[in-house]
C-alpha cells in the first residue's frame, strides 16, 4: 500500500507540472491582457507601463519559471482583481465559504439521495418509486441555476420568506444548499436504486433471504455494500465539484465563495489567480481519485491496488 501511494504521489507531481505548463500557455494565448481598452486603444507608452507593472513584458518561459519558482516557495503572487491581498489570502478568504456550502450540500444531499435510492429500490414500482424517480429526473435534468432562479422567485420575490442572497445565518443557506444539492442527490438516488435493484437479483441475496435473514438485514449488510461500489465511482468526483464552489449558485445567491473566480479570473485575465485555481482543482481531483481508489479496497476486498 505504501509503495502504491508513493508511486501515485510521484505521478501526481508529473501531472502538476503538466497542468501548470498547459494552463500557463493556454492562459497567455488568449488575446488581451489585464489592461482595458474599452474606450480607445491605449497609447503604446501606457500599454508598456501596464505590462511592465504586471511583469508581462518578459519572455513567456521566464515568466513561467519565475512563477513556478515563487510558487514552490508558497508565493502565488498577487491577484490582479484584489491587489490588496495575495492570491493565497483571497483563496483563504473565499474557499472556506465554498467548503462550507459544498460540505453542507454533501452532508445533506448524498445521504438523502442514497436513502431515497434504497427506498425506491425496495418499493420498486410503487408510488414512492415514482416520486423518487420524478425528483431525480428533475434534479438531473434541470440545471442548478434554473432551480436557483425558481427558488429565488418563489421564496424571496413572491413569498418573501427568505432573503434573496448573502451569507450569514441558516436562512441564507437554505436556497443555495437546495439548488446545489438537488443534482448530486438525484444522482445518488438514481445510481443507488438501479445498482441496488441489480444486486438484489444476485444469487447471494437469494441465499441470504433463504437463510432467514430479515429484509432489512439483507439490504443493509449484503446488498447495499455491494451496491455502493459503482456509487463511489460516480459520487467521488462530485466532491471536488462541490467543495470548489459553483459560479452559478454562488453568484445567484451572493455567496462570497471561490466559485466565481474560476470564471472571472479568465475574463479579467487575472493570471496569478487563474493559475492558482487551476492548480487547486488539479490537486483536489487527483486527491479524490486517489481516495476513491483506496475506498474500493475497503468496500470490496477483492480489489487489489497495484504494488500492494
Amino acid at each position, binding site marked *: 500500500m505504501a509503495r502504491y501511494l508513493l508511486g501515485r504521489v510521484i505521478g501526481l507531481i508529473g501531472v502538476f507540472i503538466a497542468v501548470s505548463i498547459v494552463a500557463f500557455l493556454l492562459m497567455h494565448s*488568449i*488575446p*488581451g*491582457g489585464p*489592461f*482595458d*481598452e*474599452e*474606450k*480607445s*486603444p*491605449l*497609447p*503604446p*507608452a*501606457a500599454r508598456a*507601463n*501596464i505590462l*511592465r*507593472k504586471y511583469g508581462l513584458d518578459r519572455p513567456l518561459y521566464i515568466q513561467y519559471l519565475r512563477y513556478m519558482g515563487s510558487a514552490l516557495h508558497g508565493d502565488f503572487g498577487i491577484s*490582479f*482583481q484584489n*491587489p*490588496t*491581498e495575495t492570491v493565497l489570502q*483571497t483563496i483563504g478568504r*473565499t474557499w472556506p465559504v465554498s467548503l462550507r456550502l459544498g460540505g453542507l450540500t454533501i452532508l445533506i444531499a448524498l445521504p438523502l439521495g442514497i436513502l431515497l435510492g434504497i427506498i425506491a429500490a425496495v418499493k420498486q*414500482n410503487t408510488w414512492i418509486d*415514482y416520486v423518487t*424517480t*420524478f425528483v431525480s*429526473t*428533475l434534479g438531473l435534468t434541470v440545471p442548478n*441555476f*434554473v432551480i436557483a*432562479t*425558481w427558488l*429565488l*422567485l*418563489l421564496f*424571496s*420575490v*413572491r413569498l*418573501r420568506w427568505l*432573503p*434573496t*442572497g*448573502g*451569507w450569514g445565518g441558516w436562512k441564507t443557506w437554505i436556497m443555495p444548499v437546495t439548488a446545489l444539492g438537488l443534482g448530486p442527490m438525484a444522482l445518488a438516488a438514481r445510481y443507488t436504486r438501479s445498482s441496488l435493484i441489480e444486486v438484489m437479483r444476485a444469487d447471494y441475496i437469494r441465499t441470504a433471504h433463504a437463510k432467514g435473514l430479515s429484509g432489512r438485514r439483507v439490504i443493509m449488510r449484503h446488498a447495499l455494500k455491494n451496491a455502493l461500489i459503482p456509487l463511489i465511482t460516480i459520487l467521488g468526483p462530485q466532491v471536488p465539484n462541490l467543495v470548489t464552489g459553483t*459560479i452559478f449558485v454562488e*453568484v*445567484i445567491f*451572493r455567496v*462570497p465563495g471561490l466559485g*466565481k473566480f474560476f*470564471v*472571472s479570473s479568465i*475574463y*479579467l*485575465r487575472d493570471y496569478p489567480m487563474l493559475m492558482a485555481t487551476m492548480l487547486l482543482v488539479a490537486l483536489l481531483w487527483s486527491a479524490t481519485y486517489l481516495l476513491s481508489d483506496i475506498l474500493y479496497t475497503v468496500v470490496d476486498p477483492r480489489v487489489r491496488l497495484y504494488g500492494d
Partner: protein
Amino acid sequence: MIRHRIWSITTLLVVFTLFLSACGGTAPAVPSASNTTPQAAPTTAEATQATGATSASAATAASAMTSAAATTEAPAATSAATEAPAATSAATQASGAAPAAVQLPADAAPLEQQVYVTHYDNTADFTTIDFYESVYKRGGAISDILSDSLVRLDKNFKLQPGAATKWEVDSTGLVWTFHLDPNLMWTDDTPVTADDYVATFRYGADPKHAWDFTWFFNGVIKNWDDVVAGKKPLTDLGFKAVDAHTLQVETQTPAPYLPAMMLYSDTMQKKALEAHGGLYNSDPATSVSSGPFILQEWKKGERLVYVANPKYKGTNKPMIQKIICIGAAPSTDFAAYQSNEIDFMSGPNLSPADNTIVSSDLDLQKDYHPHYGDFRTHYLFFDFQNPPFNNLKVRQAFSHVIDRDGLIKSIIKPTQGLPAYSFLMPGFPAANSEALKGIQNYDPAAAQKLLADAGYPGGKGFPKLTLWLRNEAPVRQAMAQAIAASIKQNLGIDVDVSNKENKTFTDAMNAKPTQIQFGLVDYGMDFLDPANMLGVFKSGGRHNWNNKQFDDLYNKASAFTGDPQERTKMFQDAEKLLVSDVGSVFIYHRTPGDLYRPYLKGTELEPDQNGKAAIHWPGFTSFSTLPSSMYVSKDVTNYRKSVPQ
C-alpha cells in the same frame, strides 16, 4: 416500464407549470457572468437606460458647456439646482469644530432612516473606489465620494463649482487657474490643498502606476504624453500649485473643454498616497476623506459601506447618512429590487423578461425613470483601408440597407433607443441629428445601385463577411442578426454574426492593422463636449477611417476659443463629413432608464429642463450635485420593514 416513464414525465410537466405560474410566468433570468463587463469610464449610472430621449434641444447642453468654457469666471453659486435644499447649504457654511447638523426637508424620513442601498457588480473587476487609481476597476459601485472634484454636473449637465469655487483662463487660452474652496478639510484635520490635486494628477501620469485612463489627457495637458512615456519627469507635468488654494493647469493647445474634463478630479490625499500607495482607500484604517462620505466597511466581493462625513465642509453635503453597496451579479438585481432589498437598480441589468414585467406592473412603471445615459451610440465599423470597404460606394450601400426604425420598433424597443443616422445623440452638445438624417437613410434601391456601381452587382464577387460583436447582450445579438439578414436580402452578401468575448474583440479591433473587417461597437461620452465623442474617429484612434479633412476640422474646432456657436458649427461640419464619408454606419442611440423607489426624493430628481425626472449621469458621486440633493422620504416605511444594516 414505458407507462411509468410517461407517468413521471406528465407529473414533471404539471409541476413545471405550477412552478412557473407561482413565479408569475417569468422566464428565469439566467445569470450571465460573461455579460457583466463593466461599462467604460464613468460610474454606475453610465450603463443606464432611458426611454426616448425626446428631441432634447441640442443647444441647451451645448451652450451650457461652451459658456462654461469661454467664461473667465464660472457662475458662482448659480442656479437653484445646485443650492439644493437651502437648509443644507446653510448648514454647510456653519463651519467649526462641531459637525454641522443636517436639516432634512419636511417630508423626509428621520435621520437614521436616511440609508441608501444599491447593488454593485461583484463579478466585475472592482479593486478601487478612486478614479485616479483605476477607472475600469471600480466595479460599477458607488465610488469617488471621498473627495470633491473641482467641478460637478447638475441634472441639466451644466457645470457647477465643486472643490473649485471659480476658475479662469489666461489670454493665451493655455493656462487655467482653479481657485480651491479653502474650507475643505481631510478627516485627519489637515486642509485640502492644491498640492493634493497636483500629487493626484502626477500619480495618474506616473509610468510606475500604469493608470488605465492616461489616454484621457493625451495631447491635452502639457507634457502629459512624455511623462506617461517616461521621457520627462513627473515635475514637468502641466499641473502646478501656485499657492495652497490655487491650482494652475497648463494645456498643450487651447482646450476650451478643460473645465468639463476636470469633472474627473476627485483628489487623493498627497500624504496618504505617499504613505500607503494608491490603494489607501481600500481599507477604512488607512482611508482618509475630504468628501461627503467616509469609508466605513469594505468586505471584498460582499459589501461596501459609506457613512456621511461629519467633518465635511464642502458644498455637496449629503442628507443620506449611510450608503450600503451589496456585491451581486447584475442578473440578481431585479429580484432584490422586487423584494425591497435595494432602493435603486440600473436599467440595463433588466433582462427582456424583466422589462416585460416592468411594463405590465403599474408600480414598477412609476419607478422606471428614462434618461440619456451617457449619450451612447451603437455603430457599424469597417476595415477602411482594404477592399471592399475602402470603396466609399460600398460603405454607402451598407449605410442604406439598415431599417433603423424597424430595428427599434421590433427588437430594441422604443423605450430603449432612438434610431441613429449620425453620431451625436440629440441633447448632446453640437448634435445635429435632423440635418444629417437624410445621408444614411434607409433606401435599399439606392443601396443596390451603389453596390452595382462599386463593381458588385447583386453582391456578385463580394467576399463573405463576419460581423463581430463585443460581448453583446441578447437584444443586440438579435439586432445584429437582423442587420445581417437585411444585408443578405438587399445586397446579396452573406454575413455571419459572431459574438466575441470582450478582450478578444478589443484586442483584434485595436491591432494595427485592425483584424476586424466588419464590426458592431458603441461609444458613450466621457465629458460633455463634442471634442470627446468625435475624437473617436480621429486618425490613429479607434478605427482606421483616416480622413485628413476631418482631423483638421476636429483639431481646429477642439482648440477654438472664440464664439461658441462658431465652434459648434465647426464640429457639425466635421460630423457631417464623418456621416457622408461613412466613417461608420450609425444604428441607434441608447436611451436607458433606471428603477428606483418613489421614496428617493430631491430637487435633482425632479424633472430637468427637458422634463426628464431621473438619476442622471454620472449618478451618485461627487462628479454630480446629486449627493446634496437626494434624501429618503417618509414613504419608505411602506417598503422597508426595518432599517437596512
